[in-house]
């Protein structure tokens, strides 16, 4: 299975606390006790993840419905890159 075919989701969204700070966003992840300082587009990507596993392509469509996406040709690959990074941090999950 390639990364583009993986289904991404997250556990209870209540386990993270999001707070804007000086143009960036702080994410406090309760289970790990870690704080992540993130920049766009990470909060936007996190916001479209839900407990329902969905492929990156669908998540991209949801993002495209809310935002004007720039860099479209590479958008899916970039999105998958971010999703994998979020998984590595424990903020998202994939299967």
């Amino acid at each position: 299975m390639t990364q583009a075919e993986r289904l991404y989701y997250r556990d209870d969204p209540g386990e993270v606390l999001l707070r804007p700070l000086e143009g960036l966003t702080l994410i406090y992840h309760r289970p790990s006790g870690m704080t992540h300082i993130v920049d766009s587009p990470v909060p936007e990507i996190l916001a479209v993840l839900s407990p329902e596993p969905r492929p990156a392509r669908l998540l991209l469509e949801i993002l495209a419905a809310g935002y004007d996406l720039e860099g479209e040709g590479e958008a899916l690959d970039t999105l998958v890159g971010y999703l994998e990074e979020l998984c590595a941090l424990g903020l998202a999950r994939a299967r």
Partner: protein
Amino acid sequence: MKILRWNVIEYFSGGAFVTGRIVPGAGVDERKDQDQGAGRDGDGEARSAQAAGNARRKLLLGGGLAAASAVVSIRPALANTAASVLNCQIPVPDPAKGMGQMIAPDGKLVPKGTKGAFPPSNRPFTGEEVKAALRSGRSLPGTSYDQNRAYLNYIRRLQNGTSGFTCYASLQMPR
């Protein structure tokens, strides 16, 4: 909010480990608008709806900055000063990876019904509880002697990417 702010200050003053790179301003338009959305806890759908209702904002996905990481992570460095370490949680097992499984005496996840294995804990343990169990031999709350040993073996086997790993790793750090 108050607690969060305190934690962050504590991390910075406590010799935090900071990883990752950040690219301030990468792909950001109308930052103020975005902040309002980001302030909501995990309310993705409401946020998407809000985004659709307002003037459309730009989101940079791809382009020259695509490969740059937009995340800086701060993990608690000092177990004795970071309140979050004591309050952080270690589920036994990780609900995403151990769904429907049991914990063998050696800490491995085994299929439900395996002889000698223990059922999952009905609540996650806190860093404080695990620390006490590892250091002073006190049992994890609500566990029998053998169950406690199995659970601690599971916790010792935690790997990066598994829920509870960072909490456990933080407990291992020297003062």
